[in-house]
């Protein structure tokens, strides 16, 4: 197994863990955390392909990860603001109970 394959396997497992968490946990914050883990698994893929790929001097993977981290930060901020707004409205942060379309 080459180092690249090791990285990709780690990233696949991380993605699976994040996916499982995001799908199965009831709490809204943990769903967000699961999505963050999935994003980071993708970032690890980018870095691994940049490091062991053909043209590391082009910095494509690094750039992608930098932008991805910035987007993840924005996503976390908006997502957590949503969680707080939902909590304020429904008095719960359990995703299963938040199903009313009418306020």
């Amino acid at each position, binding site marked *: *197994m*080459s*180092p*690249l*394959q*090791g*990285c*990709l*396997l*780690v990233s*696949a*497992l*991380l993605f*699976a*863990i*994040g*996916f*499982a*968490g995001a*799908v*199965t*946990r*009831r*709490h809204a*914050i*943990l769903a*967000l*955390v699961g999505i963050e*883990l999935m994003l980071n698994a993708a*970032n*690890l893929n980018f*870095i691994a392909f*940049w*490091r*062991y*790929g*053909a043209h590391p*001097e082009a*910095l494509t993977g*690094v*750039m992608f*990860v*930098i932008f991805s*981290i*910035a*987007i*993840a*930060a*924005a996503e*976390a*901020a*908006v997502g*957590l*603001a949503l969680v*707080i*707004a939902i*909590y304020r409205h429904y008095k719960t*942060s359990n*995703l*299963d109970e938040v199903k009313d379309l009418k306020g």
Partner: protein
Amino acid sequence: MSLPFLIIAFVTLFAAAAAMSLRNLVHCSLAFVVAFAGLAALYLNLDAQFVGFAQILVYVGAIAILIVFAILLTRSGDTPNEAVLAPGWFYGIAVSAAVFTLLGWAVLSSSALPKEVSSAPQTTVKNIGEALMNKYVLPLEIIGLLLTAAMIGAVIIALREPGKTKMEAGELKIDKTAPPSSILHPPSSTALTGGHS
């Protein structure tokens, strides 16, 4: 597959699994911090220094704190008594296991992956900065716009609705059915003895 890589990967995956499976949300968020620090270490192991440090700065310094604040603001810091998993948790785990099996099979049997290990690329912060300012200047500007929009949006979403007092917003509630305590009804003798026993 060096030893440091294996150790860091194990720690990262273990922390990620803990973050997704612990009952207490604060423990989850702390495990999440460990997972992201481990990912930063993986980036450093892959010679991506700038990205590793940025990962620590953004995830440990900012996002983890945001999550912690959100946990405390939604009053979910205590260990819940009811189930933490959604009713259909089995299907979710089955699907994610299937995803992992598929991805793992693809990675291990792929012939497109470069087999030889190239030497560590020489990247400096200067290179990254120059690339950001020349080739990637448009994405950079868009990211700046996105961050501003996200910040304003987050503030507006989390803002308390205007014109409502705390009482109307439902934060302060007076339970009218409850009997008034203290002065009018002196505590009963059982309460007194209960207090002293």
